[in-house]
Each structure stands twice: as C-alpha cells, then as structure tokens.
C-alpha cells in the first residue's frame, strides 16, 4: 500500500510541476507580447523619424490602416478565402495521398526500394519553381494553385509517413509475433498508432509550405488572393499593401498552427509531456 501512497505523492508533485510549467508559460507569453510591442514601436519610430525610407518600409500604423481599408471595402475576405481555398484543398489532398503512399511504400519494402529514388528526387526538387509549368498544364485557375500546394505537401507527408512506419520499435513487432498476431493486426494496432506522431509532425511542417505555395501561386497567376495583393501592391509601390498581405498570411499560419497544436496535444495525450512539446 505504501507504493500507492508514493504514487499519489509522485502525481501530486507532477501536478505541481505542471502548474509551475503553466505559470512560466504564462510568463513567457507576457514576455513575448512585451517584446512584440517594443518591436512594433521601434519599427514605427524608425520610419517616422526618417531613419528608414517610407518607400521601402511601411510603418505598422500604415499597414493597420491598409488592412482596415481592405476590410472596409469588403475585398479582404475575398482575398483571404481565395488563398485559404487553394491552401486547404491542396493540403488535404496532399496529406491524404502522402499518408496512403507513405504507408504503401513503408509496408511494402520491395516497392518502397523501387520507388524511393524517385521520391527522393522529387522531394529535393524546388517544386515552387514548377509553378510556370503548372500554369501551362492546368491553366490560370484554382487547379494550378491547388496542384502546386499538393506537390509541396505530398512529398513531405509521404517521406515522413514512410520513415514512421519503419521506425516502429522492433520489440513491439516481436511481441506481437509471439502473440501469434496476424499481419493485419500488427499493422492496425502497432504500426499505425506509432506512425501517427510522425504524420502530425509532417502535417504541421508542410502546412507552412502549403500556405507559401498558395501565395506564390497567386503571385504568378492570380486575380485574387493574398499573393495577388502582394504583386499588385509592388506594381504601384504600395508598400503598405505588401506588408498588409504578409501580416495577414502570418496571422493565418499562426492561428491554424495553434489549432493544430491543440488538436495534436489532445489526440496524442498518451505521449509523455517532455516529448509532446
């Protein structure tokens, strides 16, 4: 019974430690906010005092004003939705195909060995440079941008999923075999769950690429979207519009990544805290 008592004590210590962690997380959030304020003020000051030319750098106040105007004119949402559409469709399709192919190649070593040079080559190619080709192939509509995003996401997810299937603890597989497990059960109950963290990591990594891909795509061939705002702004030296589009892009990335982080922590709550963070 003393062991149980020790455990309760241990878990109490753990809870206290966690509370301490949360407190310091609150502190670090405050520090981060303070840092951001200082940075924005310094930026504003640098432009207003003339240290930096207004032609090259828009002050935060002007950026905020531009965002306000775009929002007021009602066009801001159209641009954001256009970018999000290409990002999310391409990202979802890329993740799905990447996971499926990753499992297929990871679980069928012979096919994996056959195709892995191809995958490595594709993965090392700067796919963003394929944008002009995609225009030729798929026109200047949404399809080209979705394909661009897809091509960025799919290989990241594929290689990570494949690596995940191959990094399963060999002793887990051995134990399963000693329990007389069928291959189907080993895949579903051992390989799949231990690959999930790898897939999550790949998804979070590739989302940043997906958003960048959508924006770059619009710069080449868009009539709308955040990328279009950037190109249109630079065409008429509207620096604050360029920065407005960048700020919004960063905000979208931040919000969606935070949501993904929350989801990941909930789905992977079996992982020890030190690993999850």
């Amino acid at each position, binding site marked *: 019974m003393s062991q149980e008592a020790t455990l309760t004590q241990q878990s109490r210590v753990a809870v206290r430690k966690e509370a301490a962690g949360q407190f310091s997380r609150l502190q670090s959030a405050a520090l981060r906010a303070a840092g951001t304020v200082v940075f924005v003020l310094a930026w504003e000051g640098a432009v207003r005092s003339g240290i930096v030319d207004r032609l090259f750098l828009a002050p935060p106040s002007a950026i905020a004003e531009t965002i306000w105007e775009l929002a007021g004119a009602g066009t801001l949402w159209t641009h954001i939705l256009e970018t999000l559409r290409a990002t999310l469709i391409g990202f979802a399709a890329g993740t799905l195909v990447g996971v499926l192919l990753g499992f297929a190649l990871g679980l069928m070593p012979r096919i994996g060995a056959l195709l892995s040079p191809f995958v490595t080559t594709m993965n090392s190619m700067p796919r963003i440079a394929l944008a002009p080709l995609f225009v030729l192939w798929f026109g200047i509509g949404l399809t080209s941008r979705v394909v661009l995003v897809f091509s960025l996401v799919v290989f990241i997810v594929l290689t990570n999923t494949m690596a995940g299937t191959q990094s399963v603890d060999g002793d887990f597989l051995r134990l399963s075999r000693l329990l007389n497990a069928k291959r189907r059960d080993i895949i579903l*109950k051992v390989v799949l769950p231990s690959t999930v963290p790898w897939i999550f990591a790949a998804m979070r990594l590739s989302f940043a690429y997906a958003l960048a891909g959508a924006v770059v795509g619009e710069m080449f061939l868009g009539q709308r979207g955040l990328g279009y705002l950037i190109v249109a702004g630079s065409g008429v030296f509207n620096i604050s519009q360029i920065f407005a589009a960048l700020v919004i892009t960063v905000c979208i990335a931040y919000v969606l990544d935070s949501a993904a982080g929350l989801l990941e922590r909930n789905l992977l709550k079996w992982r020890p805290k030190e690993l999850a963070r």
Partner: protein
Amino acid sequence: MQPDIEQTPLGEAVTGGPAAIALRRLTQTFRSPKGESFDAIADIDLDVADGEFVAIVGPSGCGKSTLLNIVSGILPPTRGEVSVKDIPVTGVRDDIGYMPARDLLLPWRTVEHNVEFPLEIQRRLSPAERRQRAHELLAAVGLSGFERYYPHALSQGMKQRVAIARTFATRPDVLLMDEPFSALDAQTRVVVQDLFLTIWEAEHRTVVLITHDVTEAVALADRVVVMSPRPGTIRSVYDIALPRPRSVEQLLFEEPRYQRYLQRIWRDLQH
C-alpha cells in the same frame, strides 16, 4: 539438523514422466558474420512437468534466449524436437505465453487496454469479458485504480506489474519468461517477484524462466538448470526443495538452505 546440500542428489533433466514441455537433442547452429558456423546450444534434453517452475541459469552467451525462442516457436531448431503438451512446436502458438525483459507496454494504450491486447490479438472473449478479465488481473497485481493511466505515468515496477497481468491475460498453459525482472532495481525486483509468485501459485501454469541471476532462479523455481557457456549444454540440474508458498524476501534473509543452494549453483557456474 539441516540437510546438507552437498550430499543431496542432483535433479534430473529428463524425468521420463508426463511432461508439459519436452526437449530432445535440441541443437541450434548459427553462422557467424565470417561465415563459420557454431552451435549456440547442443543436444539439450529437458522435461518440464505440468505446473512446474523451471529456471535456466547460465553465463551470457550460453544460448538461454535461443532455447526460449525455440520453445516459443519463433525460431525453428536446426536439429532436435520440441513438444509442448505432447504437440510438436512448429510455430507460434496461442497456448504458449511469453514475457520479455522489457515491459513493452504500447504507449498509446491505457493500462487496461495493454492488458487486453493479447486477448484482442487472439480474438478471445467479448469486449466486456476482456475488460472484466483485465480489471481482475490488474487488481491481482495491485493496480486497481490505474486502469485508465497511460504507461508513461507509471513507475518501472508498476509497468512490469502491468506486463505480468498482460502475460496471464490469455491463461497460457506454458509461460516462457526471458529475464522478466532484470530491468528493475533490487528492491522493486523482490516486490515484483513476490507478486509474481503469488499469482503463479494461484494460477499454477508451467513456467520456464531464463535468468542470469542465481538468487532469482533459486527463490522462484522448483528446479534450476545450469547451462555451460557456448555451445550451451546442460551442466547440472538442482531440485529446489524449499517449501511453498515462498516469500522471496524471507528466503533472502532467513533461510539457510536457500543460501546453500546459492553457493552450490554459484560454484557450478564458475567452472
């Protein structure tokens, strides 16, 4: 008067009676990276009676684990025969259980789901019955209330107790154990060994335990088999005539016969 162990007759490897496990002229030949072949174990004959607890001790590299792998059905022997319950072992079987040195709890499964894992894999019992069996076993290893915990929240000793519960979940006729307590610190080990003995005395399965720890072998087993270094052969066999139920803790401190078994087997291993 204490009986002198020096004069007690040694046990027999082959008892000739009805056996739960029978090994005959078992030999395993491996090929080294240089291409030379060598025998890991050679001509092993051993009977294990139904409900008997046999411990096999020997220096590392004597082929103990190879022997266990062969009995488990995962490694076909080069020569010789193995049968469990009078049926030749030709592959992994549901009636043979295995407990490895590492706890190998699946980190994404809760404690209760880990205990249910073998039952799920072998399609035994309904989900509700599996859950009930898991809870009974967890109670038996003193872990009631921890059913919904994830393994990372448990101490090493608790994880090993979950592993014991998982091992007994399928009620295997024969239980093979590969140094199952070696990952524990000395104090926890005694606690977990005693716990295992309690459950074993209730369930009374046939057990083959492999260990390099002579104290563990003598404290737990009915019979201790001493193996020689490569190629592994049976050097000697000791019947451990210590009364049951046993308490490992009491044996350690209060039982002079236990000490003499230790000395004798220890000397045997030194050759």
